């Protein structure tokens, strides 16, 4: 299906072709070369307005970049930058760091923010504490940190931290992507106080970004699995000719297609600023995470033992999906958020609230 995003997808694919996925290690925790090529092409600023230093374009373009990189297992903080931290920083009226330098987001841990000036709007804060599970900690140059506001104030402070010189503890997710902690020891940084709804939106953006990545990666996993089933011959027939295998592939296709439809709709809800975007993102994250169970399991089953090896490409995507589903809020957390959100509107009948989500 032709879309307005075909050109951006083709450009990202061309760049990806020169950067094979590799096993991430402490020495090589991300794909610096891939990032450099993406930044040179202006792709690390897609969807961020030109007047703020970005490359312009729409949310759909940014999503296309993220999807393509996710399907290619690109080890770069593009989802964090284009879909979460960048828009959140701009929405808070803070200065966007140069998009050529990776920007990530820290949503977890125990960090407090104290104002260091008297301004009401964007101002300066001192951050103290430890941000945990920070995507690309140690890699990203800047981190948009959600910190607890001073006592008695609702919401959170969003602050932009220059991570150069800060210590990042090394921890990784199941795919080896950095997810360490950052210790903030009275760092003075620019920041802004966000009301609770704006905080929820930042978290929803993060969840939706992971859902977008999962959806794209699972589509690729399905394509690889269909391809493999067509090539691998046993008992004189390609695997895909066996009905047992066809059932597994059809089941995978059902999960992939349902997830894609929901994630697309949630992205559109974000794009039009729907007031139900948090519930839409919650649904997308939960559904995508659930799809990972079936799709990754059956992809490995169909690929057989070769797909269980480090030399085979399959693990680059299945390991990522197994982690992404837990990140930016676990499935359980988002499932509760969605359930509570549906009954909150009308405890007597969830249907009207259900039809309003998307």
């Amino acid at each position, binding site marked *: *299906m032709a879309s307005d995003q075909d050109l951006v997808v083709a450009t990202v694919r061309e760049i990806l072709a020169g950067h094979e996925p590799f096993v991430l290690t402490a020495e090589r925790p991300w794909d610096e070369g891939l990032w450099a090529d993406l930044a040179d092409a202006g792709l690390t600023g897609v969807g961020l307005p030109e007047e703020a230093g970005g490359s312009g374009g729409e949310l759909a373009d940014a999503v296309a970049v993220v999807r393509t990189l996710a399907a290619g297992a690109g080890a770069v903080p593009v989802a964090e930058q284009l879909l979460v931290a960048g828009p959140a920083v701009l929405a808070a009226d803070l200065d966007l760091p140069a998009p050529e330098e990776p920007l990530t987001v820290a949503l977890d841990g125990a960090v407090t923010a104290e104002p260091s000036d008297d301004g009401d709007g964007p101002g300066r804060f001192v951050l103290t504490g430890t941000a945990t599970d920070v995507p690309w900690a140690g890699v990203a140059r800047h981190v948009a940190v959600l910190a607890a506001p001073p006592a008695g104030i609702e919401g959170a402070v969003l602050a932009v931290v220059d991570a150069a010189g800060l210590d990042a503890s090394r921890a990784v997710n199941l795919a080896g992507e950095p997810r360490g902690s950052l210790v903030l020891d009275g760092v003075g940084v620019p920041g802004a106080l966000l009301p609770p709804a704006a905080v929820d939106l930042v978290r929803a953006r993060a969840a939706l970004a992971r859902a977008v990545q999962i959806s794209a990666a699972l*589509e690729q996993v*399905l*394509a690889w699995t*269909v391809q493999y*089933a*067509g090539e691998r011959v046993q008992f004189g027939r390609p695997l*895909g*000719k066996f*009905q047992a*295998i*066809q*059932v597994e*592939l*059809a*089941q995978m*296709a*059902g*999960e*992939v*297609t*349902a*997830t*894609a*439809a*929901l994630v*697309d*709709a949630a992205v*559109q809800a974000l794009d039009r600023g729907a007031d139900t975007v948090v519930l839409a993102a*919650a*649904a*997308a994250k*939960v*559904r995508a995470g*659930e799809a990972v169970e079936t799709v990754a399991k059956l992809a490995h089953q169909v690929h057989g033992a070769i797909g269980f090896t480090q030399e085979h490409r399959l693990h680059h995507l299945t390991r990522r999906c197994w982690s992404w589903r837990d990140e930016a809020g676990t*499935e*359980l957390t*988002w*499932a*509760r*958020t*969605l*359930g*509570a959100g*549906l*009954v909150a509107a009308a*405890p*007597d*009948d*969830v*249907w*009207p609230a*259900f*039809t309003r*989500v*998307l």
Partner: protein
Amino acid sequence: MSTDQLTLAPAPPSEAAEQVRLEVRQFLAEELAAGTFTTHVDTWLSGVDPGFSRKLGARGWLGMTWPKEYGGHERTAQERYAVTEELLAAGAPVAAHWIADRQSGPNLLRYGTESQRKEILPRIAAGECYFVIGMSEPDSGSDLASIRTRATRNGDGDWVVNGAKVWTSNAHHSHYGIVLVRTAPPGEGPRGKHQGLTQLLVDLSLPGITVNPIRILDGGHHFNEVVFDDVVVPGDMLLGVEGAGWQQVTAELAYERSGPERFLSTWPLLAEFGRRAAASGDPGQLAVLGRLSARALALRQLSLRIAAALDRGELPDIPAALVKDVGTTFEQDVVDEVRRVVDVPASLDSPDPLGRALAEAQLHAPGYTLRGGTNEILKGIVARGLGLR
């Protein structure tokens, strides 16, 4: 990539759909308050109420997308979608007209003669004329092309039909059947059996037709066996093209398989569970409600996309098979997931409405993944869409 066949454009948002949704919601609230119906699970199979169907017809909520000259209302697929899902969510008694409005009418619009359309479509849109699907037979279930019901031309140019159809929902309340019959021997080759099949429009009051009840496992009478014994069907009741029955059935099945009834049959149970979770505030119950709702939201987006594609004149038979496979699996899973987190035994005699909803949903559950094509057949169609067969 071969998954392209599964990809559909998003459905455009529709203000008009949201408007009619509120009208239907208001109507249903009033009817419920007046006690003209009570909410049940799976009412698009079991809830026959001609009076209720006529009320919907009078409000313009049947035949919604059809041309006005045939009694339709020329509204969009999204508007019709909103109406149907509101009716399903409320567990309203819609079984009488459901098949006619969903697929027989569109089938007549596509393939019927002018006089067939003029004669029948306005009555369907009024909620007065009901249809059955004449596909499955005692010896032909999933292998539909193996049907044995035959029709031969007699000297007057009429069709003489012999055979039997089964699982014909509500034939005992219906006026017509669109009956798939063999009119010529199968052709050569693996797809040869798809040749020689024809659809006939059969008035169920014709001499030689016997309707025998087939009770489902809870004793409910929805299904029937319809036996044709030298039934003379007028020659002009051929539907579409003689010998093109297989293609016509395939088109009809895209309507049959993709609607909201393929994931909302057990919504009244989910709604009852939602009330329970709201009252208890139990985090585990709220999480299950959220998880099931996320699945339903995804199915709804898929189903809406197919409705929009049908509206554009496309034939999304493969996505329709997929949504029915995933959707009906969900309908069954609702029972399993809910019963794991509530301390309520399923019983039709339960003093607790949740217990009754669980019982109704459980007793109807085996049907969800069988009717309209078993999920095994549907997965085969999806596999074909993936290029595997």
